């Protein structure tokens, strides 16, 4: 058993962000991940050339164990790519059962960020009161932004909503349909600004200029299957950087943490299993960043809280298809396949909904044709014609507490139960109407019946099982992620979010992990 200053469990966005300040200050850190390094390599070349020329394209498009039932599930096409093995291993290892909830977790270096849509947004100062001093969070936001690289614009209607980013790279070029929508929106708002519906360029963790080992986005269009340029940020890219820092890093992959405990003199210990068997490690502090489901399981086990339901926050979400009739006849061209434009729509109760619009270039046509009420062959022909003149949208509402619960069962499995309340469904229906009206003004038609409400969890947006709390309450964490009841154990991932906003939250999780690490270092120095 070796002693470490810090043990970090998980190499997702939170784990990696927490590791940087610790290693920069020369600490001895053990970084543990249950998965393996992602072996899947992204396709080389641009999307259309690969589609028409690569006879082996099945290998990068579809996972090898694809089954008939995979075709009928209404989840993202990402779940059918070779990268989906990350999820499957997670479900096997963590023994998760769920009702009305798609419980996914990432068991690979980089965690769930391997599937990240790369959306970046800062919380407003008023929302940061749960995260210690807002200036500390803003400092951490700046640090993370410099490290991951963010592109977008600082002068359109959504710039304030995303928060001011001092070092923005130029935004990814817009596709023809998005460009037309954006121009029309900007033209209209000059005459009649509308606070109820705002459209702007997406703010993304995607670089457009080359830096170190990453190349700027050059619109290959293969984003769904991984970026050959590494233009889209992934925490796995930072492992090598971490190894070069001043501190002493021990990096263990394929090591599944089975339990944590607080040993003698309040020293936390992790018990893990890897290919060589069972090993234990202890450190002065333990930082949990195993993802909301993984960290919650470890902490509930350590606290001995069996069948104690915790709230799990999950964004209500929907997806839809926007058709721009004036672009009918356009052909598919290679363009950036993640969010190009984003929008904020206000509901009657002033609650905001946030969403993004994506090019359909890199998306499988069968995902759309399989939902049309006609024969397969004719549906493909129709979907093909419509899709080349359409964009796809997704939209999120702030998570409603009490809709989803998580508990640890006596057999050590995790059970997640979820439902969408009538209010939530009603809000989503109103939202659909609002979007239809606003996009119609921009010349795009929200295709009837394309507005599909996602099953809770299927968007991978969930958090908040051990929220930060100013007062010491059971099953919460301090401002520094300290778990009440287990000394020297801190959670830094999504579990500690006190609320789950409609806007992208991964950037906030990363900044919060960075902030907590800095606070822990400060306390140690004192």
């Amino acid at each position: 058993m070796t002693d470490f200053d810090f043990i970090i469990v998980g190499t997702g966005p939170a784990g990696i962000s927490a590791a940087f300040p610790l290693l920069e200050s020369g600490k001895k850190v053990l970084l543990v991940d249950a998965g393996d390094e992602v072996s899947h390599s992204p396709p080389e070349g641009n999307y259309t050339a690969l589609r028409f020329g690569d006879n082996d394209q099945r290998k990068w498009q579809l996972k090898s164990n694809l089954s008939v039932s995979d075709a009928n599930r209404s989840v993202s096409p990402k779940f059918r790519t070779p990268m989906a093995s990350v999820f499957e291993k997670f479900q096997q290892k963590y023994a998760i059962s769920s009702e009305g909830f798609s419980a996914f977790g990432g068991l690979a270096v980089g965690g769930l960020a391997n599937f990240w849509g790369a959306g970046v947004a800062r919380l407003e100062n008023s929302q940061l009161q749960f995260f210690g001093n807002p200036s500390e969070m803003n400092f951490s936001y700046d640090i993370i932004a410099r490290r991951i690289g963010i592109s977008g614009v600082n002068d359109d209607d959504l710039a304030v909503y995303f928060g001011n980013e001092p070092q923005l790279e130029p935004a990814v070029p817009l596709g023809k349909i998005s460009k037309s929508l954006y121009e029309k929106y900007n033209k209209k708002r000059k005459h009649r600004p509308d606070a109820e519906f705002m459209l702007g360029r997406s703010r993304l963790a995607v670089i457009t200029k080359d830096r170190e080992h990453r190349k700027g986005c050059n619109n290959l269009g293969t984003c769904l299957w991984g970026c050959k340029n590494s233009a889209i940020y992934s925490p796995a890219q930072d492992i090598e950087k971490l190894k070069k820092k001043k501190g002493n890093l021990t990096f263990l992959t394929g090591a599944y943490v089975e339990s944590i405990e607080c040993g003698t003199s309040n020293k936390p210990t992790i018990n893990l299993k890897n290919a060589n068997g069972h090993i234990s490690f202890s450190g002065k502090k333990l930082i949990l960043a195993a993802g909301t489901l993984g960290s919650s399981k470890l902490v509930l086990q350590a606290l001995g809280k069996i069948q104690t339901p915790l709230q799990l926050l999950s964004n209500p979400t929907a997806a839809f298809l926007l058709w721009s009739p004036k672009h009918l006849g356009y052909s598919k061209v290679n363009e950036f396949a993640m969010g190009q434009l984003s929008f904020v729509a206000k509901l009657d109760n002033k609650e905001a909904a946030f969403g993004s619009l994506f090019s359909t270039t890199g998306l499988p046509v069968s995902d759309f044709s399989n939902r049309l009420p006609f024969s397969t062959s004719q549906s493909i022909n129709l979907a093909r014609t419509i899709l080349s003149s359409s964009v796809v949208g997704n939209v999120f509402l702030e998570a409603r507490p009490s809709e989803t619960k998580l508990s640890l069962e006596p057999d050590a499995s995790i059970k997640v139960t979820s439902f969408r309340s009538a209010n939530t469904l009603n809000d989503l229906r109103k939202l659909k109407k609002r979007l239809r009206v606003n996009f119609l003004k921009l010349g795009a038609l929200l295709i009837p019946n394309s507005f599909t409400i996602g099953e809770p969890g299927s968007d991978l947006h969930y958090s908040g099982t051990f929220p930060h709390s100013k007062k010491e309450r059971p099953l919460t964490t301090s401002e520094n992620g300290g778990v009440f009841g287990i000394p020297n154990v801190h959670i830094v991932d999504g579990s500690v979010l006190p609320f789950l906003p409609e806007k992208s939250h991964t950037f906030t999780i990363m900044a919060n992990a960075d902030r907590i690490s800095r606070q822990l270092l400060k306390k140690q120095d004192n």
Partner: protein
Amino acid sequence: MLAITGASGYIGSHLLDILDAQNLEYLLLSRERPLDSGLRWRYFDFESEDNFTLSNDVTALVHMACGANSRNYTPNLELSRTRQMLNYAKSKKIRFIYLSSQSAHASKKSIYAESKKEIESLVLQKEGEVIRPGFVFGGRKAGLYGSLLRITLTQPLIPKFVPSPSIDIIDVHDLCGSIVNILELPARKEREVAVGLNFPLGFNSFLRAISSDAGRKVFLPLPIPIFAVRFFNIALGTKLSDKAGLSRIMALHSTPSISKADFAKNKSFLTLSRTECFIQRHDASQRRKLLFEAKWLCGYILDELPPIHILKTYARSVEASERSVSIYMPSFMRTNLALMLVDASPKLMPASKMLSAKLQFASIICEASTSGARKFIGSTKRQCPIKAITILFVGTSKAVLTSILGATVGIFLQLFLSND
């Protein structure tokens, strides 16, 4: 020592072969004394009102006699006699194993399945054990297997049920081997064991496979729609349709498969080598059928002959999926037009629902290919807007028209579909 009822039956006679081969002692319980006077025997009859007793050296009782074979059979008679046996076994601490059937859990039961189900619950209530085999085949030409084989070998046409039921099968030697294995194990907490290979096989394929093993070379099918069997089953009434075997066919249709979890739990002490060998021998034809199915469905989606790698991917993936049976459609209907009409119709039959799921799956596989790019992306050149509007208008009109035709002609064509 082991006592056995029903040892002269199809399964019982094979069990005795194994017991003899292993020099295990047993006591036969039957109405008639066996011809071999060296065997230990005791009189046993469902209709007898004598007290049920056994010699003191009996430690286990395997009950596989079926009361329905008695002349004056009533379900109550069998139930009360079994209760008597169970009470005796319990009082003398004799292990009681009842051989039931997977069809006891069918949603549409025959009189046979009904009585099996009732006895099962009685056995479990009295701390006995239940062995529940799938469809038993192989060995001597007796039992239901023997009757089926006789029909398939003597009739000019082989019945082809439309749609075909899926069955879990077990070779009679494997079943008896498994019974002996279970007897050698101590009594388990879980007192129900499903014995069969977790590999759903189409009943039509099964009939063809056993008749081919028995030497039949020509297979002319006689399509029998299940709805017709259902109609006669209701029209003839319970007793007559039981005699005609119709209720057994309906029960086959609604018998649940052995669950993957149950199979994994029991696999270690089951003997399955002969059944696996049977599946392997005939699996090649199953793979061939899936390749034909892939050619048929993917050809329809791509509007061209699909490349072999698409067919192989499709067949492999379907084989690995839970419902790995192929879809059967008579060859005269295997045209893109017929398939399009069925595809555009409301899916009412289980086989057409499966076809719909498989078409969605085939779309995903086809799309991930260069042929798929031609169909799913089309031209990379910009089209003239008027041409694009025309394509959209004509395409939508055709699709609506096909849906109308599908709702009439397509529904009728669905009757010819079955899982094979």
